[in-house]
């Protein structure tokens, strides 16, 4: 999986509790992304980062925050988990520079985290 790990791989939590998911890369890629995948919706972008301390919102960012203090780590936090945030979460990285980059923005995905909010 292109040097990307996610932790935890599985988590069950209760509504209202905070949850932090971690993505770690060893590829020194500039761009990092958090997606959620739900049946019938495909992958939807939550937040992304284009450098250390540089992040921006994606399509479904409400209820989520992110932080990137080091190139290799991108954290996704659910401040107060809700049942609608039950999903599979994928982290991805891309080394492309600038507008779509030389290779068109190919992304490498981690193995995913299955989160269940009861």
């Amino acid at each position, binding site marked *: 999986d292109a040097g990307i790990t996610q932790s935890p791989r599985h988590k069950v939590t209760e509504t209202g509790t905070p949850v932090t998911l971690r993505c770690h890369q060893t590829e020194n890629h500039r*761009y990092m992304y958090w997606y959620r995948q739900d049946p019938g919706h*495909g992958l939807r*972008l939550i937040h992304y980062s284009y450098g250390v301390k540089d992040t921006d919102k994606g399509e479904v960012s409400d209820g989520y925050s992110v932080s990137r203090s080091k190139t290799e780590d991108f954290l996704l936090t659910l401040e107060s988990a809700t049942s609608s945030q039950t999903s599979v979460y994928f982290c991805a990285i891309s080394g*492309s520079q*600038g*507008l*779509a980059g030389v290779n068109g*923005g190919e992304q490498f995905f981690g193995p995913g985290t299955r989160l269940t909010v009861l």
Partner: protein
Amino acid sequence: SQKIEQNSEALNIQEGKTATLTCNYTNYSPAYLQWYRQDPGRGPVFLLLIRENEKEKRKERLKVTFDTTLKQSLFHITASQPADSATYLCALIPSGGYNKLIFGAGTRLAVHP
């Protein structure tokens, strides 16, 4: 509204035949279109990308076409094998999208011996 659509019904074909998957989009002007493969319980894996000024791209048994007039990409797997069974996702980068991919929901392909 902007949409990227793939056939939600599974595609079932016999081994050795050519599988053709469709990706249609509306109200986007993609600079690139990509195809990924996803196996159950795994993250997507990049297969091919095609640029807006390219009509066709090939890689081994895979072929992608891109018709910006029809707003459609076709993904072909020739001489299909049971190991090709997976879900295939198309994704596009809108012009000015700065590496932000927009994904379709995917089409599941089942290749039967």
